[in-house]
């Protein structure tokens, strides 16, 4: 018996309990509330299960409008971020220019400040430019949020492509553009795919920028969820939207695993 107790990995158990309490328990609670019709104290589990609040939420036109706004915003921001950041990432990885290290670090420094304070100062600037409350304003503020990820991850991916592979392509007659298109890009694609996916998901869930710059005219899913949680007495509305918001990121991650393969996806994320 003493031997059995000694064999137990106590720090492991403490860590597992910690994770269950702080990560799993809140998620389980939200899931339970999403499928609850009645839950009275002191019952540990809901007293009546059902999908009534799902129907109530899903028949609201503002939910669908917010969903399509969020998907559209995420797609536009991801596409713009790719157009701007991928060439920049290639330049950081393969070219030499003055201030290269400074610029590279500046993307990191921008994220070292308290995020909310940074967004407020940008929002003040946007106020003078008449961008507050506009779709364009939300696109720009969310685009700024993606720069760190969309430059650092692809830069590392381009740097990891063997120079010899590129030289071998040049050697058999490929122009610099063909080398990039046929060799460099496919080699870096898993990491770039992971960066695009994460950008899409982060943008979809981005709240502070969309709230400070876009609300109330531009209503995204997270903003709607916040307003439902703050303004509705019924807990289930917020819970249903939370679970519903979890679905797109799950689908995106599953899709990415299927398209790119788990190995290359993990590699892209730096594993």
């Amino acid at each position, binding site marked *: 018996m003493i031997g059995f107790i000694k064999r137990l990995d106590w720090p492991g158990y403490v860590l597992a309990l910690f994770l269950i309490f702080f990560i799993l328990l809140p998620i389980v609670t939200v899931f339970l509330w999403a499928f609850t019709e009645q839950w009275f104290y002191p019952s540990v589990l809901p007293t009546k299960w059902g999908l009534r609040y799902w129907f109530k939420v899903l028949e609201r036109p503002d939910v669908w409008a917010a969903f399509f706004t969020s998907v559209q915003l995420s797609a536009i921001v991801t596409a713009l971020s790719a157009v701007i950041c991928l060439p920049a990432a290639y330049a950081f990885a393969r070219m030499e220019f003055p201030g290269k290290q400074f610029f590279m670090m500046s993307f990191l420094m921008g994220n070292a400040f308290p995020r909310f304070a940074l967004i407020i100062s940008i929002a003040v600037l946007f106020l003078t430019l008449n961008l507050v409350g506009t779709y364009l304003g939300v696109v720009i503020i969310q685009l700024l949020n993606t720069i760190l990820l969309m430059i650092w991850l692809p830069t590392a991916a381009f740097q990891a492509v063997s120079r010899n592979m590129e*030289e*071998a392509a*040049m*050697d058999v007659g490929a122009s610099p553009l063909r080398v990039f298109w046929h060799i460099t890009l496919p*080699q870096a694609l898993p990491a770039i795919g992971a960066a695009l996916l994460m950008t899409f998901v982060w943008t979809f869930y981005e709240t502070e920028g969309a709230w400070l710059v876009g609300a109330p005219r531009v209503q995204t899913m997270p903003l709607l969820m916040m307003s439902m949680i703050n303004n509705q007495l019924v807990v289930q509305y917020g819970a249903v939207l939370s679970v519903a918001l979890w679905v797109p990121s799950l689908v995106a991650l599953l899709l990415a695993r299927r398209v790119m393969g788990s190995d290359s996806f993990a590699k892209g994320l730096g594993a």
Partner: protein
Amino acid sequence: MASLSLAGVSKEFNKMTAVSPLSLDIADGELVCLLGPSGSGKSTLLRMIGGFEAPSSGQVLIAGQDVAHTRPDKRPTAMVFQSHALWTHMNVFDNVAFGLKLRKLSKAAIETKVMEALELVGLGGYHKRMPRQLSGGQQQRVAIARCLVLEPKILLMDEPFASLDQHLRERLREEVRQIQRKLKITTLFVTHAQDEALALADRIVVMSMGAIEQVGTPDDIYANPQTQFVANFIGTMNMIPGAVSGGRIRASGFDLDAGFSDGPATLAIRPEDFAITETGTTVLVKRVVNLGPFLLAEAEHADGTAITVHLDKTHPVREGSSLTLTAKRHAIYRDGEKPYRSQPTA
């Protein structure tokens, strides 16, 4: 196929000289090995010929045309890299076919040429495999096929077998030699392994610190090293410090023809150039190693000079016994250069 000439080619990186101005002519269909230790400038020289580095000065002439500042994709050269540099997202067929596709050949012509190239390197039937499914040796064969399929005028090989085991290296270098002779393709082969250079090359260019030390056939380089560096780098050479006086060199008991001015000098004798005689220099055997066809004796002269001797097995020696030696052939170096070489004696 074409000849290659380097005229005053040099390379500096941030004011550090990697290759001093040098000139070299390589004949059409010749296989030349650039041999030297790490940092001798041999790979930089090869990269300048391939177009991956621009020379700081000089001309790179292929079939008489200067390509010193032409991009690699516009040069009639093809390079086999040490790291194989196969494109891991393409299968074997696509790796070999890539250059042909860029030249916009018909699909049928590409297929025929790729299959022929793969057959040539012994990889017929491997065209659907991905690089990760091949061994190191097979990957290097694909890299060679990828170059040969383009029928380049000059084939450049940058330590292509450095990452392979000894047995595979020997087999592949023999195959490369046969393919090179069959196709009569002008080839420049960089290596730091002297056995590889001696076995492969029509001529060897020995390089040190960015400069050419000696150019010659393998036999010439081995038998007649022009500098002390070459003598030390190719094979084993006993370097015995001594002095020339009255036309003879005296070093660790040896008293041999010198044929040049008095002063300090180094006597050089290869281990196989000793003869065991009744009169001569006596050394004490410290260690005997059986190398199969012959014995290697590590001996020491009374003045502390270490001497390595190759002995055939008809002269059995034991550790602790003494040997009396004379030199069948010797060379003398002063200030690193060789002013004197004796003719071999029977």
